[in-house]
């Protein structure tokens, strides 16, 4: 069975050598590619079945390799919103993470005393975004909102826990 496996692999690699589609590269000089010296058959009687209906269930049980793309719907009951399509016309942009979520995080340090909110993956006019965020957050806060901008890495760091407020602000702008 293993010899058959090796030859079928070789055939597959030769046939699809000039295809443009992605395929697993074959490594010829490895332990797994070399055939066994003796083929040992098991003692239990079994049948080999190749039923496409049953194989669908196997594929259903196997995990996904890549994060699926969200589908366009009219409403999302959970409160999650997708990003706008025309993204290049905006003055600034907050890229979504690979899980399609908004990259706003809370960092707690010094035994819960220090709380910083980070907004990551910012492109474009980061200073304009910082100004607008400060204006928005200042309405709800007595203390002055302290922030730091890192243009190279595209991060704004704001003192305090404003994660939900910033997420609401960005979702309103469909970012």
């Amino acid at each position, binding site marked *: 069975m293993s010899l058959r496996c090796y030859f079928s692999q070789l055939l597959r*690699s030769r046939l699809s*050598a000039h*295809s443009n589609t992605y*395929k697993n*590269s074959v490594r*010829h000089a490895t332990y797994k590619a070399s055939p066994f010296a003796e083929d040992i058959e098991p003692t239990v009687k079994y049948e080999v079945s190749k039923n496409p209906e049953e194989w669908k269930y196997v594929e259903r049980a196997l995990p*996904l390799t*890549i994060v699926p793309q969200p589908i366009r719907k009219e409403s999302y009951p959970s409160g999650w919103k997708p990003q706008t399509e025309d993204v290049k016309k905006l003055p600034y*942009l907050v890229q979504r993470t*690979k899980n399609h979520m908004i990259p706003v995080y809370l960092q707690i340090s010094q035994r819960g005393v220090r709380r910083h909110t980070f907004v990551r993956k910012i492109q474009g006019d980061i200073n304009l975004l910082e100004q607008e965020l400060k204006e928005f957050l200042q309405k709800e806060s007595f203390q002055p909102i302290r922030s730091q901008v890192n243009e190279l890495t595209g991060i704004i760091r704001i003192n305090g826990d404003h994660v939900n407020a910033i997420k609401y602000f960005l979702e309103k702008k469909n970012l």
Partner: protein
Amino acid sequence: MLSNISKNLRTCTGYLHKYCSTSVAAIENKSNAIEPRTLAFPPKYQDPRQIWLESLDTIDQRKLALLELHPAVFAASPRIDVIQQNVRWQQLYRYVSYAHTKNKFEVRGGGRKPWPQKGLGKARHGSIRSPLWRGGGVIHGPRSPTPHFYMLPFPKRLIGLTSMLSVKFAQDDLHIVDSLELPTDEPGYIEELVKSRLWGPSVLFINLEDIMPRNITVATEQVKHINLMPAYGLNVYSMLKHNTLVLTRAALDHIENKLLENLHMNDPKAVLAKFKVDQC
């Protein structure tokens, strides 16, 4: 010596005469057969990059078609610090230090107490090879063999590859070729090709499979600075070491798709877990 040089000159000019072709008809015929590239994970935040598809059939450069490259792989942020960390990892993970110093138990002698504890007015000592003594053992010296194995986190290795490919593309050191088929197996041909196209003295050819066309393997066997590598062997150190990187179209598809899949990985648990040597 002169005869050697003249012989080389003759062979060079011979290749130039034989393999320099700029027939337009050939280009037109070829371009009809070339399909455009479709990018997996359509880029949203950056525009796709474009690159010429070339050929190794003739010494002169022939541009066959324009191909699109995914910006997440070929226009990623050029993180020089991550590239350096990858190079350091590649050099160190297999490095074993054989430096060795003897500790006090290993140094010859020193079993007997040199002089009695009390009465002499001298300092008290137990052996002549203690670390306090000249010629004594070393305390925290190098102990052979010391492996320096460590695994750089998977995301850093991934970003290292995308950064390096982006750097190569940005500095015009990346070329795409339809296949690695050469018309002849003489090393002079490939050397002349590289020289005339200004591909830099050292070139790294990347093919999809490890079994490569015969002519190029024979031609590059003797030439130390032109190397062949299968797609699974692509690494940051090799890309830095060679001036130019040449990918075949199939290798480009494979590498780009594999990197994009890993950038959009669903469950990174297996890949972020601590590295364990496979037992079977």
